[in-house]
């Protein structure tokens, strides 16, 4: 029995949330839906951890859908990289659900709760599906499942700006997804197959035929919209700011990371770094855009008065760090990019959870309303401080590990200016984190803050789990940087 389940793990990862979502709708009851969603997301987390372990021990796990052998059928393929990404996606999905109920009750009307949890599960299905599938068209389908459900989730926000933010995200996101679809179509036209491994084997690289070039351009631009790379990030700040707190926690921590994952997969497995970085100047361009993005977004973050918007701009900057690592195309650089996906998911998830706690107790995420809240809500404020240290990249936090790896790879590649700029940009992070810390601890309490009570344990504990994880993974790196390094070597080794 156990063995039978074991053989089906890759598909169970998708099927469990997919089945649970309509069950949530069938119950029609917020509490029952919540219980179901929580159980399923925990099971999904267990599944993905098991899968990750399996890939670490035995290598790639494959699953043929409907027993149709690839490249004719759809193949699900889990290697170390996808196992790593799906583990933290499902893990954060589960932790956010533990944290969710109080905040959801506060921000979303009671009659929509069961639909909220159903949509949340669908979003998780889409994100995990993108990690697990080995079929390019399937990537598009899962991308759309996750995007459509996230548009719906974002539009649930309390203010009237939430639907507008969701709409703007929908327009840009759909253009991005359609670009990806065009890219997939052109690749299919060239190779006659949709299986990623098969495409990689058949696509002609030497002379860079124009169709491949165009396909590559469409895929890159489309995924850049989804990743919110600097000039294409305009949907992100509004979407993160006006979405309900729980939704922001989940989407900020996972959605852009999964797009980065898809981008890395396509660049390193299908396009191959040789074509993308040597024949085409993608590395220089990525580096340029990410550096400009890091600076502009960090500076923008400094001037925000809304804490969620501040964190959103910081997210745009952090995506820059990931791409910076990826653009190095060395084992160290790539593993820095991958491990930063994980570390940033922990840090940003934790910080948005803190923002959610304040939103529950103070009823606002405006910085001016948070004045002096450090006295009445010390634990929540402390969580912000620790998470902030991680975001800056102070030693002993997870953020330090990824920045250290990035610096090392920049030195290895002999790119001193890049390293210097990175250090400089960390100072900007110090500024925006400090602004909030100062407001929390050293300002005269506002009326709301003076009467506030500590956030409920139900929310504090999950917050501290994530914030604590940033400390744990800042010291003990074999399961973060170690796995990321293995994944990076596999990605680079798989290419000639």
């Amino acid at each position, binding site marked *: 029995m156990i063995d039978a389940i074991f053989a*089906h793990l890759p*598909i169970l990862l998708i099927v469990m949330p997919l089945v649970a*979502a309509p*069950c949530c*709708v*069938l119950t029609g009851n917020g509490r029952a839906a919540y219980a179901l969603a929580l159980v399923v997301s925990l099971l999904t987390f267990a599944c993905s951890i098991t899968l990750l372990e399996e890939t670490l021990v035995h290598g790639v796990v494959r*699953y*043929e859908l*409907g*027993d149709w052998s690839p490249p004719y059928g759809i193949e699900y393929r889990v290697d170390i990289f996808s196992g790593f990404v799906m583990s933290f996606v499902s893990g954060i999905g589960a932790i956010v659900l533990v944290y969710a109920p109080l905040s959801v009750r506060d921000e979303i009307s009671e009659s929509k709760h069961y639909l909220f949890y159903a949509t949340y599960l669908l979003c998780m299905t889409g994100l995990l599906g993108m990690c697990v599938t080995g079929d390019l068209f399937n990537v598009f389908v899962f991308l759309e499942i996750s995007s459509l459900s996230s548009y719906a989730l974002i539009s649930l926000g309390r203010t009237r700006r939430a639907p507008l933010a969701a709409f703007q995200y929908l327009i840009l996101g759909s253009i991005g997804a359609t670009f990806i679809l065009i890219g997939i179509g052109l690749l299919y036209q060239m190779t006659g197959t949709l299986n990623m491994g098969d495409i990689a084997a058949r696509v002609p690289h030497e002379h860079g035929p124009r169709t491949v070039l165009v396909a590559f351009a469409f895929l890159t631009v489309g995924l850049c919209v989804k990743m919110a790379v600097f000039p294409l990030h305009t949907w992100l700040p509004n979407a993160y700011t006006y979405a309900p707190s729980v939704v922001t926690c989940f989407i900020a921590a996972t959605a852009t990371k999964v797009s980065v994952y898809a981008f890395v997969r396509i660049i390193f497995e299908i396009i191959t770094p040789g074509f993308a970085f040597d024949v085409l100047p993608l590395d220089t361009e990525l580096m340029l855009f990410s550096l400009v993005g890091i600076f502009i977004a960090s500076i923008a973050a400094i001037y925000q008065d809304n804490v969620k918007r501040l964190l959103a701009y910081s997210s745009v900057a952090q995506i820059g760090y990931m791409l910076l690592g990826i653009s190095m195309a060395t084992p160290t650089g790539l593993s820095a990019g991958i491990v930063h996906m994980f570390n940033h998911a922990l840090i940003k998830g934790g910080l948005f959870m803190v923002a959610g706690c304040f939103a529950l107790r103070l009823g606002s995420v405006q910085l001016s309303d948070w004045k002096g809240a450090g006295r009445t809500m010390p634990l929540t404020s402390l969580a912000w401080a620790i998470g902030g240290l991680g975001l800056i990249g102070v030693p002993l936090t997870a953020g330090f590990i990824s920045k250290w790896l990035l610096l090392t790879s920049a030195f290895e590649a002999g790119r001193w200016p890049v390293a210097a700029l990175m250090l400089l940009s960390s100072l900007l992070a110090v500024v925006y984190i400090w602004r909030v810390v100062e407001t929390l601890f050293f300002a005269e309490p506002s009326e709301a803050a003076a009467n506030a009570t500590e956030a409920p344990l139900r929310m504090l504990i999950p917050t501290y789990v994530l914030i604590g994880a940033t400390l744990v993974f800042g010291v003990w790196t074999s399961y973060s940087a170690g796995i990321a390094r293995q994944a990076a070597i596999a990605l680079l080794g798989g290419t000639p």
Partner: protein
Amino acid sequence: MTGFPIIRIITKLLIPYILLFAFYVQFHGDYGPGGGFQAGVIFASGLILYGLVFGLHAIKKVAPPIVIEKCMALGVLIYAGTGVLTMALGGKFLDYSVLEHDVLPHWHVPSGQHLGIFLVELGVGITVTAVMTMIFYAFAGRKQV
């Protein structure tokens, strides 16, 4: 809509054929062009036509929104349930060949690939019908701004 007898009568005449055609597309989809998605849209168009002509109140009696909402979920469950069933029978997800059986062979009970695709399309058909009707409700039910 009491003042338009022609529209009312033509609608009444048309709706059975629209629904029948939907069933044809649904169940003949195994042999020819067609399938759950198309059938669902056609079926829903019958319901929506009824709603347009006789009013939201009348259509909500025929297809109560709460039932439609559950049908949306039910269709997905039938689809995913087929996959889970094939897994329970020892195949891969959606591996229809494990659905081979010898029940009532003379009655042309579909088996194997046929049964699998039939169930999946049924799920798709139910969901699409429900979703299309739900979209109609969602828009038609809004008050005038």
